[in-house]
C-alpha cells in the first residue's frame, strides 16, 4: 500500500471527483442521508484547501506522503458524517502513509445532532459533596438528581462526569464515567500523565466533559444507528490509528532478545539460574533478513 503514487501526483480533480461520485452513488441508492443544509461540495472544497497546508509529523505535506486511497477515504468519511473542516468539526492527520479524518469533540456532537437526529447533547461534572443520583432501567441509565454547591466546584475534586443525548421523540441516552474511568481514557493518549501538568490537569472539568461526550456519542452511534456506512465512517479514524499504533509496537517490540534453553548438566541439576536470557539488545539491522549462519546456537549435551 505504501507503493501507491503519492496523492500530489494524482490531480486534485481525480480524488475529489472520485469522492463526489461515490457520494452521489450512496445518495442515489438511499444509503446516505445528509443533513439539510450540508453541502458536500463546499465541505470538499474546504477540505482540499486545508490539505494543501497539512503536514505530517516530520513536516512533509500529507498530500505527498499519504496514499491517494487514504486521502479519498478520509474525505469520504468526512462527508458521510456530515462534517466540515471549516467549522473545526474534523482535522486531517497522517499516520504513516494513511490519512485519517479525525473528528473533534464539536464534530462528534454535530454527527449526533445532524445525522443521528438528537435534539441536544450536554455534559456536566460531579464534584465531591454534590448530591448525584441515577437509576438504571434495563440497559439505560437515567439521572434523577444532581444538585451542587458552589464551594464543591474544584477541578481536583471531580468524582465523575456524565453526558446526556436528548431526543424529541424518545428517552435520552445517558453515559456516566467515574473519574478513574476518565483518567484511564486519558492514559490511552500520549499527552496525559499521572501527576503531570497537561491541559487535562489545568482544565480537568472541561476535558472530563469532552471525554464523556465522546464516549456517549460513540456508544450511541454504534448501538442505535442502522446506517452501516455512517458507523464505518465514524469508527474508521480510531481503527486506522489503532492499526498504526500496533504496527509501531511491533516495529519496536517484535523479534528482539534471544532466549534459549540452558543445556542440562548431568549430575548437577540447575538451581536458580536455570534460564538464560540474553539481555544484550540484538542488532536492529538483523531484523528483516535471514540470520547469519555464523550465529549458531551453542548447544549443550543432549541438544
Amino acid at each position, binding site marked *: 500500500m505504501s507503493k501507491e503514487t503519492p496523492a500530489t501526483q494524482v490531480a486534485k480533480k481525480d480524488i475529489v471527483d472520485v469522492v463526489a461520485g461515490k457520494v452521489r452513488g450512496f445518495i442515489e441508492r438511499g444509503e446516505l442521508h445528509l443533513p439539510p443544509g450540508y453541502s458536500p461540495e463546499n465541505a470538499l472544497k474546504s477540505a482540499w484547501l486545508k490539505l494543501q497546508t497539512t503536514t505530517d509529523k516530520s513536516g512533509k505535506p500529507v498530500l505527498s506522503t499519504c496514499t491517494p486511497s487514504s486521502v479519498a477515504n478520509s474525505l469520504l468519511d468526512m462527508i458521510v458524517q456530515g462534517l466540515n473542516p471549516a467549522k473545526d468539526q474534523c482535522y486531517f492527520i497522517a499516520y504513516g502513509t494513511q490519512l485519517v479524518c479525525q473528528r473533534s469533540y464539536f464534530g462528534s456532537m454535530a454527527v449526533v445532532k445532524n445525522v443521528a437526529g438528537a435534539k441536544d447533547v450536554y455534559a456536566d461534572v460531579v464534584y465531591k459533596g454534590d448530591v448525584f443520583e441515577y437509576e438504571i432501567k434495563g440497559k439505560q441509565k437515567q439521572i434523577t438528581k444532581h444538585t451542587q454547591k458552589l464551594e464543591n466546584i474544584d477541578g481536583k475534586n471531580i468524582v465523575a462526569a456524565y453526558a446526556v443525548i436528548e431526543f424529541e421523540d424518545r428517552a435520552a441516552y445517558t453515559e456516566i464515567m467515574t473519574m478513574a474511568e476518565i483518567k484511564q481514557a486519558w492514559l490511552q493518549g500520549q499527552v496525559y500523565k499521572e501527576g503531570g501538568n497537561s491541559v487535562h490537569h489545568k482544565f480537568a472539568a472541561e476535558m472530563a466533559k469532552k471525554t464523556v461526550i465522546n464516549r456517549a456519542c460513540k456508544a450511541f452511534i454504534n448501538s442505535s444507528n442502522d446506517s452501516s456506512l455512517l458507523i464505518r465512517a465514524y469508527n474508521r479514524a480510531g481503527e486506522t490509528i489503532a492499526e498504526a499504533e500496533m504496527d509501531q509496537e511491533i516495529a519496536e517490540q517484535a523479534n528482539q532478545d534471544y532466549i534459549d534453553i540452558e543445556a542440562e548438566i548431568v549430575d548437577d541439576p540447575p538451581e536458580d539460574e536455570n*534460564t538464560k*536470557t540474553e539481555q544484550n539488545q540484538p542488532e536492529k539491522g538483523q531484523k528483516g533478513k535471514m540470520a547469519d549462519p555464523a550465529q549458531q546456537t551453542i548447544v549443550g549435551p543432549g*541438544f
Partner: protein
Amino acid sequence: MEIRSFGSSSAGNAYLVTDGRSPLLLDCGLPVRELKQATSYQLSSLDGCLITHEHQDHARAAADLMRAGVDVYASRGTIEALSLTGHRLKVVRALEQVEISTWTVLPFDTVHDAAEPLGFLLAAGGEKLLYLTDSAYCRYRFRGLTHIMVECNYSKVILDRNVESGALPSAMKGRMLRTHMSLDRVLDFLAANDLSRVREIMLLHLSDGNSDAAGFKKAIQAATGRMVTVAEKGEKL
C-alpha cells in the same frame, strides 16, 4: 520428534508431540472424549499437557485431563482464570525453565488478550521445537530450532477485504490485529530467526474465512525453503 494435530482452529486446538519416549499434549481445547479417541484411549500415558492460555479453544479439557491423571502446566494467571485446583497442576513462569520427563521446556510470554499467556520452547533428544500460538507477535528470537509450530491466523489483505464487504465486523478485525499473528508477521518472525537447523514448519490456527491455506504454505515455503505443513485435524507432520 513427531507432531500430530488433533485440532487447529478457533473450534479447538490440541497437538501431541513426542520425542519417541515421552508424549506431551500442547493445549487441550477439544472435548476430552475427542482427546481420548485421538490418543487411542492412552491419555494416562501422557507425561503432561502444556496450556498456553485460558481461552476454551485451548483449555477446554484441562480439568478432565487432571482427573484422568495428567499433569497440567500453565501460568498462574491462566490457572486462576480457569479456576483450576488440584495436585496435578504445575505452575510455570515465563523464562523459567522446567523439566518434564525427557523434555526441557522454556515458557515465554506472548501477546494475547488473556490473563498471562505463554508460548513454549521445548527441547528433547537434540531437537528443539517452538510452539507459538495466539500471539500478535513474538517478543523473542530463538537459536537452533529444528521444528516450528507457529500460528498463521490471517492475511491482512483478506481481512481488509472481508471488512470492506461487511463479512467481518470491524471490531473483530481490531481484536485480530491486536491478538493474532498474520502471515506478514510470521514471515517477519521467521526472517528474524536462524532457520539453519529447521526441518519442518507447521502453520497453526488458520482463521476461517480470513486465511488461505495453500497460499500461506506457498509463501512460507518460498521465503524459508523449508518443509511447510498446515495443521489440520489429526494431520501427521
